[in-house]
């Protein structure tokens, strides 16, 4: 595998998630975009037998790529050659039954306990609040999939101590059993948070920095958190994207660059090291 020499931050995040994809596991991809592309990339390179389901009840498709612009859900190309077609209640119910190993989603804002905000920035109901789209399927993914992989950007305003609004549940107030007390299935919850810079897990239901990309330091990462998360004793250094990964992302998956272009900033190899 040849290390790539130029790629976007969004591409980095998708490659990191793709490497987490395991064979024989089920993934609920939230909407289209980065979650779906990450899973498809993982299937193509690392775990062909990983299966995924989408919000409209498509089970284990062999999609006709590339997708049409903004046409991933209920689209005939996206559901092509599935093993079963259902509706939204299909995926809601199957996840409630415990059939979905992983949920992959991205969001606006995440906090120290993995709670997700996709509803409002600012105080809910106040005049200054900025309204967003709501949880969509993310609330059910975060509640009912066994493990949640959250993709977001490494920015202070997105990495906050406490989200302005819990749209989708993380560990809630972080106390032991808080999810169970709220009626959520036991042994579920946030598992990883992936940004273009870093990977986090949870220790005692608190976010912990686990790994970083070579071109940023732990300090730079912590700079982009509103609070200081836990840091693993050994912060692993992640492999950069490979040419192979980018080739597939750019020529088979996101051919229009809609997703990969979404984040402006790029990383390049200057001959000695990767630079932002």
């Amino acid at each position, binding site marked *: 595998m040849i290390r790539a020499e130029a790629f976007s931050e969004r591409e980095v995040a998708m490659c990191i998630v793709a490497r987490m994809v395991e064979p024989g596991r089920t993934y609920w991809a939230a909407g289209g975009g980065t979650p779906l592309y990450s899973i498809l990339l993982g299937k193509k390179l690392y775990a062909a037998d990983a299966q995924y389901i989408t919000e*409209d009840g498509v089970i284990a498709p062999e999609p006709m790529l590339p997708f049409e612009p903004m046409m991933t859900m209920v689209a005939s190309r996206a559901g092509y050659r599935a093993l079963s077609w259902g509706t939204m209640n299909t995926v809601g119910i199957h996840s409630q039954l415990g059939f979905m190993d992983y949920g992959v989603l991205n969001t606006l804002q995440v906090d120290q306990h993995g709670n997700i905000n996709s509803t409002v920035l600012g105080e809910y109901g106040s005049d200054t609040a900025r309204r967003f789209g*709501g949880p*969509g399927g993310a609330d059910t993914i975060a509640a009912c999939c066994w493990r949640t992989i959250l993709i977001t950007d490494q920015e202070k305003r997105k990495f906050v101590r406490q989200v302005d609004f819990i749209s989708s549940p993380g560990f809630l107030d972080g106390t032991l059993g808080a999810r169970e007390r709220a009626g959520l299935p036991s042994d579920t919850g946030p598992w990883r948070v992936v940004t273009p810079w870093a990977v986090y897990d949870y220790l005692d239901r608190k976010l912990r920095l686990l790994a970083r990309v070579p071109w940023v330091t732990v300090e730079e990462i912590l700079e982009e958190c509103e609070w200081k998360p836990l840091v693993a004793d050994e912060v692993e250094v992640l492999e950069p994207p490979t040419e192979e990964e980018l080739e597939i992302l750019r020529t088979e998956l996101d051919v229009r660059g809609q997703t990969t272009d979404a984040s402006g900033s790029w990383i390049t190899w200057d001959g000695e090291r990767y630079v932002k």
Partner: protein
Amino acid sequence: MSTPSIGSLEILAEGDSPYFPVDPDGFRAWVRDNKDRSLRSKLMSEKDAVERLVGDGDYLTYDCNYLMRGPNSLLHEVIRQKKKDLWIAGKFTYVDVALLVGAGCVSKVDCGFFIAAAPVQKAVRDGRLEVFEYSNVVMTARLQAGAMGLPFASVRSFGGTDGFMNSGAKLIRDPYTNKPITVVPALNPDVSVIHVNQADIYGNARVFGTGIAHEECALASRKVIVSAEEIVDTEEIRRDPGRTSIPYYAVDAVVESPFGGFPGACPGDYGSDTAGVMEIFGAISTDNVDAYVEKWITPFDEHSEMLEKGVGIKRLLEMKRREVVKEGYSA
């Protein structure tokens, strides 16, 4: 004479938002008095259907969304007829809410997911739009309970969120496990508008491919308008009864609406019109819904005239050409 209580279940938490009233017995009485169980043609124009069946102040559900098998000819007619004060289910939807809000038709929305574009932002800030918080699956679970004639749905999600606290949900102690379980109010909309691939004149409807909650919407709603890409003979329905998605007695109006999903796609029949899709995204992003309505809706008496004069055969054939998947989209 009232029944004495022999025990009780704790209520552990509850949201404090208004929710559409729950009345399963009232819904049953409506079905008895208004749903036609005879095989009578319900074929009518989109104009008549919306005039007769969509009222100001109604709770309205559309299935799928403006981009995908959306009942767009019916939504356009709702806007054309300037329906007011609607309460809509903003589940699994992108531009729809912003379009209907921007067109002045909506005063309340139950949120699953929608693009909170400029028209929505403004309406919320100006107090013209109330938003109540749910999620896509919780909204479809509410519709499913409504479609089962029950007063509530139980879900294993939603608990512990701020959405829960701004909804009609309650956390109760389940009498069988003694663990907390979330219940949400059943939803029986006043009216649903649903676009399907095929229907007969009585309302027996076929949806091919995946969907969101077309069957739930049809069974849960007091008034149901089905628009169909094509009207098929009832003989064709009887040839393959396993393919019927919605039974005739749930349906109040059938509208023949080829390309009824324009500018969106109708899987199996046609792909989307990319320019048209970009145009609606542009309209809601730049807060130009009025211009969009004045270009695509108000100049025309009906959807077919819009297709004729505003779209043209070339674009429609291109949409047909773009649908390359046929497997699974026929009976």
